[in-house]
């Protein structure tokens, strides 16, 4: 969807303010949100792309003005309400009013290291042959889905070159709908900065994106 999360190329946000490596959190609530969101993953009620979809579906003015961990918080609340995990009344009171729904698992401290270090790979057994190879010229879709996509607005309907095949990965546009992973070939695609942004850009500068095969077609 063309939501506020699709920020590439927007203007007017001002300079980037660097910050030191420490502290890693600016408020205690940020720590708790990070930990709660990671822990909730064990419940198995949504996947990565569903959580990204919920975040980018926040109203644009909200998305652009709240702290990043609050974006995670609001999206998680949306997901939990939609699944009947919590109700508005419970959120207001902070107390359980209805029985919990059945979840896949609860993450306990003795399993945290195992879960964090196992991660969640998204490559899947390869099926068929990739349509493109390194060096091929491709053009990206001109498409404006109202659901989740990882093809940013600034890179739609642009000509680029396949740099490498990353592998066979879960397709987020479908996975975000929560029905099938529909894995497909993932490529690293290189675009000239001039192609994306105009001829006043340095002719040697490039932007690469990681794009799935359904986003690409061969340049006729």
């Amino acid at each position: 969807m063309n939501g506020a999360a699709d920020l590439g190329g927007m203007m007017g946000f001002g300079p980037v303010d660097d910050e030191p490596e420490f502290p890693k959190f600016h408020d205690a609530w940020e720590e708790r949100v990070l930990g709660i969101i990671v822990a909730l993953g064990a419940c198995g009620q949504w996947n990565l792309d569903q959580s990204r979809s919920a975040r980018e579906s926040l109203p644009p003015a909200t998305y652009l003005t709240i702290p990043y961990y609050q974006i995670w918080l609001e999206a998680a609340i949306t997901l939990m309400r939609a699944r009947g995990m919590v109700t508005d009344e419970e959120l207001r009171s902070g107390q359980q009013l209805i029985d919990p729904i059945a979840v896949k698992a609860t993450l306990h401290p003795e399993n945290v290291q195992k879960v964090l270090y196992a991660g969640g790979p998204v490559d899947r057994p390869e099926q068929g042959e990739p349509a493109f190879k390194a060096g091929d010229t491709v053009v990206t879709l001109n498409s404006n889905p109202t659901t989740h996509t990882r093809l940013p607005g600034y890179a739609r309907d642009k000509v680029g070159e396949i740099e490498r095949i990353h592998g066979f990965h879960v397709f987020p546009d479908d996975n975000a709908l929560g029905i099938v992973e529909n894995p497909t070939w993932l490529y690293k695609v290189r675009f000239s900065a001039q192609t994306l942004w105009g001829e006043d850009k340095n002719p040697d500068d490039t932007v690469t994106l990681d794009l799935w095969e359904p986003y690409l077609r061969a340049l006729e």
Partner: protein
Amino acid sequence: MPHDHSDGPEHSHLSDIDARVRALESLLSEKGYIDSAAVDEIVDTYQTKIGPRNGAHVVAKSWTDPEFRNWLERDATAAIHSLGYTSRQGEHMQALFNSDQVHHLVVCTLCSCYPWSVLGLPPTWYKSPPFRSRAVIDPRGVLQDFGINIPDDVSVEVHDSTAEMRYIVIPERPTGTDDWSEDALSKLVTRNAMIGTGFALLPAEAS
């Protein structure tokens, strides 16, 4: 109790968000969806165990061990995992090597994708609109915000992390470090150098 820092006199000054998060954690614990002790453990892991020193180790090893560097070029996922850095948001890795001809910069314009396994949690600016909006359209301007000027004859390659590939920039090894150990070299490697918004420190800057 979900967490033990809520009962002091500062309680009445808690911000709305602080209070909401406390209520939520309490509710989710009561409903059995989360265990606050696990939340503590997750936070502690990212505070103290998983951070940019992991990536600095990868970089320093690539500077001193040509075989490892070669492995990193061919299969960064396996090379980095061989050092024990296997955790989430590092499942699929590629290393980007800076040189005198190319400078790499990593961004995630769509959200906050970042190589947690080697750099830990991203800094606030990495997740915020000023960086995410401008890194792709004006990377040289963004680098100037960090005090870096890239000459026109050095190309800037921006990598927008739109999938689950995670990127670590391997900065150039500073001159004057020929006889340095891997451990000493790793202290020259900053978080920003591995995102591409900085260079490795010079020996004089490290002390």
